[in-house]
């Protein structure tokens, strides 16, 4: 069975599942490899009472847990946002400060996603196709933003790019600092979704294209790029989702100036602090909607990628 060479992905997303190709559905509902299916035809078991009981038990546990931990709080959030009627919800969401924060959040997240698409792809390519000393260490530190608390990320960025910067660059409390902080926290996503796809891609394809006279850019555009597009897109979508909701790394470095450097998550936090939980909930519901849409698009990309796998 070929290893699907799945690199670690913070999101747990693995864009290509080789096993999806090898295994197929049996009437009994279990995935078996082609070989074993030929070797033995298993009796159907899914109707056994013991199986049904364990299915019900584990499903009951999972559903209850998710409902209590995730479903109920989110229901309370939506309830609070809409309890005063849609008019009041709309008034809050369309208030100048909320709109400014939302525009800034989405704009900065889109910019960071675009930067990630380019720089993340280059980094993934270098990690897979290039050889140099210390590559293992470089590969390991890619995950650092994921392991490092976001508040620490903000503080470290401020140390280098703030008022006490040893290199004389001070972008603290500007919009540049937002982009910088978001780039820090979203760095692993595109790298870790593109890397495994590149690893699976046979270098001989690229060599063949080159030996047929294709230039480097042409080889990339015609051979490599079409294969890694789903990886780039799902990485970008994950980075976008993370960027839209980011809070910890922005609190310190952006200074949270309304209309200038205040993003939506900080705006929500401000409303909670001042006791306006209905207003906070209204803006939060908008972020919740963006998260849902981003997840849906990731699902669509994943679906597309597995359908066109092969």
């Amino acid at each position: 069975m070929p290893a699907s060479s799945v690199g670690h992905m913070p999101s747990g997303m693995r864009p290509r599942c080789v096993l999806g190709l090898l295994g197929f559905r049996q009437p009994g509902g279990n995935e078996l490899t082609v070989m074993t299916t030929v070797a033995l035809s298993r009796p159907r078991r899914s109707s056994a009472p013991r199986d049904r009981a364990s299915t019900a038990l584990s499903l009951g546990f999972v559903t209850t847990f998710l409902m209590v931990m995730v479903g109920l709080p989110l229901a309370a959030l939506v309830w609070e946002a809409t309890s005063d009627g849609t008019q009041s919800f709309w008034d809050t969401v369309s208030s100048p400060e909320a709109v400014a924060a939302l525009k800034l959040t989405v704009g900065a997240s889109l910019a960071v996603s675009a930067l990630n698409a380019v720089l993340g792809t280059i980094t993934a390519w270098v990690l897979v196709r290039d050889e140099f000393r210390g590559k293992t260490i470089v590969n390991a530190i890619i995950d650092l933003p994921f392991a490092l608390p976001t508040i620490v990320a903000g503080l470290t960025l401020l140390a280098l790019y703030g008022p006490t910067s040893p290199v004389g660059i001070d972008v603290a409390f500007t919009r540049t600092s937002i982009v910088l902080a978001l780039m820090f926290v979203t760095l692993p996503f595109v790298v870790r979704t593109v890397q495994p796809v590149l690893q699976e891609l046979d270098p001989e394809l690229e060599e063949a294209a080159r030996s047929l006279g294709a230039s480097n850019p042409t080889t990339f555009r015609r051979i490599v790029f079409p294969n890694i597009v789903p990886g780039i897109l799902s990485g970008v979508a994950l980075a976008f989702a993370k960027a839209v909701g980011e809070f910890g790394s922005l609190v310190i470095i952006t200074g949270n100036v309304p209309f200038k450097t205040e993003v939506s998550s900080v705006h929500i936090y401000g409303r909670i602090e001042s006791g306006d939980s209905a207003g906070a909930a209204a803006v939060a519901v908008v972020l919740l909607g963006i998260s849902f849409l981003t997840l849906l698009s990731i699902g669509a990309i994943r679906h597309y990628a597995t359908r066109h796998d092969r």
Partner: protein
Amino acid sequence: MKGVLSRLGLRTIALLYLAVILVGPLAVVFWRTFEDGVAPAWDALTTPETIHAFKLTLIITAIAVPVNTVFGIVCALAIVRKRFRGKGLLNAFIDLPLALSPVVVGLALFLLYGENGWFGGWLNEHGIQVLFALPSMVIATIFVSLPFVAREVVPTLREIGDEQEQAARTLGANGWQTFWRITLPSIRWALIYGVILTTARCLGEYGAVAVVSGRLQGQTETATLRVQERYEAFDLAGAYAISILLALVAILVLVAMTVIRPKEETA
């Protein structure tokens, strides 16, 4: 020649990118923290409030990680081995904490367990303090670190197939025996990987806990909240010292991930 040049060019871009965004800032904090030796950093770390903050972070992590581990295993088994309607919905629901802003998570819990919340009244009557106390902080942390174990275990469970489990059953093993002897050993590296990711997320959680904890110094202040508090009190040395300790834990996590990743892939 041209190939070598473009290769070097791309390598330079990638390394510069990582240096500017990741390594540079961390190096500066390390340097600033130990500028005047280890003693000031040590003093900043051993104040009673800071020690309390770290203890609280550890307590929360010690509760949240086992809960999410059990949930993650059961959830992964259900997704891979069971057939039921609404599997897609379950999948989407599990991913939600990854895509949601921690502040939104915190607010949702605040609204559920707060004084005017759905559970607030009942909890108040019975004298149970959830908000601005340990329970809400644990719940918030469980919420944000929910998906990692399940997401790591699911692909491995798919890969190993269920022939061995079926064989064990045929030979008379019951469900528990099959799980302990067959399933668990084959998913162990993925599981450990997931647990490490969950632990890192729990230790570093900030936004959700910031909302539900009330940030009471010496009571509901975790290590990450303490960083913020020290910074706001203009005690940069203190903030740096705590940050460095958290960064060292993060580096430990990276080392563990690097060691385990190849094992998980060949498992």
